[in-house]
């Protein structure tokens, strides 16, 4: 609305900029960080439930951790690592003025995220094929510890998967904004926030992976 920043003067005559609420870069970023805090609390409380039952059923947790597919999980870890890099580089490219390069890196991230999801899909189908899914009779017969371990496994990785899907949605939306010229090398806060979101998704996986796949 206001293209020129509004300025007022105090008694000593020093100039002070009035922050325009319609176009406030730091505000937008701060708001997004606050949103990330809520995500942090959500996953934080899921890990709290994990820790609670891990303490109670530690032997079972170790036992069933060994049955998870470390190869698939490990591959996914690397995929996410690379995707976080490509997402970061897209921001670097955009700020250097290279819009096309930025778009390419966003596409690369989307492709990596889709690969992540399909590996996850195969992993889950294998487990569901064996009759292991929340509420299944097989799982019930494996005992309380197994119910908790796989319950947590499906809920946390599922929640993480939903975040990946939302992230893909956000990136496609960002690409649309870039095409419409709403994201430019000087107006990049939406892309930066999306990158922050993607880093959080990665961050969660950094903890999910060892806690489920590597404690045996």
């Amino acid at each position, binding site marked *: 609305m206001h293209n020129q920043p509004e300025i007022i003067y105090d008694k000593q005559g020093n100039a002070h900029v009035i922050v325009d609420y319609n176009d406030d870069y*730091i505000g937008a970023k*701060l708001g997004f960080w606050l949103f990330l805090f809520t995500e942090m609390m959500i996953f934080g409380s899921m890990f709290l439930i994990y820790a609670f039952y891990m303490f109670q059923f530690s032997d079972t947790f*170790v036992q069933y951790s060994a049955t998870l597919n470390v190869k698939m999980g490990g591959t996914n870890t690397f995929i996410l*690592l690379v995707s976080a890099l490509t997402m970061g580089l897209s921001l*670097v490219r955009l700020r250097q003025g290279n819009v096309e390069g930025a778009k390419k890196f966003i596409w690369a991230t989307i492709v990596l995220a889709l690969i992540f999801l399909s590996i996850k899909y195969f992993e889950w189908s294998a487990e569901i094929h064996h009759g292991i899914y929340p509420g299944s009779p097989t799982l019930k017969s494996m005992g309380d510890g197994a119910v908790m371990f796989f319950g947590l496994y499906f809920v946390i990785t599922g929640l993480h998967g939903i975040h990946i899907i939302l992230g893909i949605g956000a990136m496609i939306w960002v690409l649309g904004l870039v095409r419409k010229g709403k994201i430019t090398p000087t107006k990049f806060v939406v892309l930066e926030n999306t990158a922050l979101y993607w*880093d*959080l998704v990665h961050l969660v996986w950094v903890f999910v992976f060892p806690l489920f796949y590597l404690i*045996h």
Partner: protein
Amino acid sequence: MELHQNEALHPIKASTYVTVFALLISLTVLTLVQPLVLKLALASTLSIQLGIAFMKAFLIVAYYMHIKSNTPLFRVLIYGSLAILGVIYIIMAIDTYYRYTPNDLFQLLQKEG
């Protein structure tokens, strides 16, 4: 004008990303290798794995998420929130630990007294 403001806030370079990426990769390899090389008790495995995870988390938050180059405000808020989460964890840990010794405190007092 605002662009200058932002540039001043956090200049970002591709080289930083690549360096951090290399560090993260090596840490990840470490986590994968650990169970193969060292067969440890659960507690030790957990502490090694979580230690590496926290190092990775620090790298991501500090460099990928630009906290290193942001204003102190962001840092204070993050540390504050993490501290609250941490205290909640500690309180829950105390309860979880003692839950299976009924009348924990008073039982201990009785034994001593």
